[in-house]
């Protein structure tokens, strides 16, 4: 089974190619939100380097969210378009899960933080069990302080990663102490290879879908909407 994993969900764009359980190619680029210009050349280059053609891929996997709304749409549309064109199937993989998969075998709680702006984060918590991730808290958008309160009730070491780590890591550490660790630079952002690995598991679990069924996972009820509601309430429901 050949898998092509494509990611434009955050500031980092990435492509990985995997054949069965062997990683063949991986590239990751942090060039800001310029995915509309960089992603397709990266995909093209991946196929050229690996000597694959798009038609030889069985599964196209997208990092489907949460993340930048624009980025998610670019990544998901790219995957849908390529899969549709060659008659392949697709798989959606969650951004936070991909992040946690990037720091495997950690004996504690892995907590990815994605900046959802305005003191809010997209976050979740995962534990490593056996040879895979177990979701301890499902993906959600919430105020950092609220999340710190929840994590405070969890024992053991906590490993932070994600693009919100730099901004919010110190606050989390101050609140929860030395048991909070920060991921090293190569594990801060999501790796496309981790997406490919998770995609393979999903396919084996029967989660491959037709391209038309692939949709972004925005994580609704999010930060800014809550703010919008608060402002509306303050203005007397205008």
């Amino acid at each position, binding site marked *: 089974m050949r898998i092509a994993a494509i990611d434009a969900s955050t500031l980092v764009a990435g492509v990985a190619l995997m054949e069965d359980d062997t990683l063949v190619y991986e590239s990751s680029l942090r060039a800001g939100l310029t995915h509309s210009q960089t992603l397709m050349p990266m995909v093209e280059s991946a196929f050229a380097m690996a000597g694959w053609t798009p038609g030889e891929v069985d599964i196209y996997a997208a990092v489907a969210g949460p993340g930048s709304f624009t980025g998610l749409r670019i990544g998901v549309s790219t995957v849908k378009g390529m899969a549709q064109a060659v008659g392949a199937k697709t798989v959606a993989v969650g951004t936070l899960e991909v992040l946690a998969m990037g720091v495997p075998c950690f004996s504690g709680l892995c907590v990815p933080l994605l900046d959802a702006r305005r003191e809010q984060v997209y976050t979740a918590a995962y534990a490593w069990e056996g040879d895979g991730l177990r979701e301890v808290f499902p993906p959600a958008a919430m105020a950092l302080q609220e999340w710190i309160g929840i994590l405070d009730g969890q024992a053991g070491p906590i490993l932070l990663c994600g693009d919100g780590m730099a901004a919010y890591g110190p606050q989390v550490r101050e609140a929860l102490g030395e048991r909070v660790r920060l991921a090293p630079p190569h594990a801060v952002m999501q790796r496309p290879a981790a997406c490919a690995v998770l995609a393979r598991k999903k396919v084996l679990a029967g989660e491959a879908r037709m391209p038309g069924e692939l949709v972004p996972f925005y994580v609704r009820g*999010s930060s800014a909407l809550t703010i*919008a509601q608060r*402002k509306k309430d303050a203005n007397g429901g205008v």
Partner: protein
Amino acid sequence: MKRSVLSRSVADTLWIGQKLGEGTFPGAVLALWGGLGAGKTALTRGIAQGMGIMLPVSSPTFTLVHQMPGPRILYHMDLYRLQDAEEALMAGLAEMWDGDGVTVIEWPARAQEVIPDARLDITLEFGAEGERLVTLESRSSEYDRLVEDIYENSSH
């Protein structure tokens, strides 16, 4: 801080725009209030020039946003066709105005609940014989100097 200045011509409006463009900084947000033909596009043309962007400015009514590259990127938005604030968020506009570029928002009322609080409101009202009353209101002190500068150098 709130100051009103008088624009007697399109050239005056362009000049105000240029001063605004020159005074922008990373993350600046300028909300333009005023009806059809009030001069919002002319003002934006001036803002782009003041920022050193040499591209032609047209209204993004149907495209929602024009990304204009230059020394600093200018996001020129027109929210006229949006239904509500949620649509603005789902369109990913917050990713732009929360970033390091400069954002000009036409028809901001459509998404008033979610556009940044720290912004400069610019209201264009019709006066006699083609004149426009341009009111600059800084909603954050970082715009005060810009408002003062334009006020001191124009008719009012």
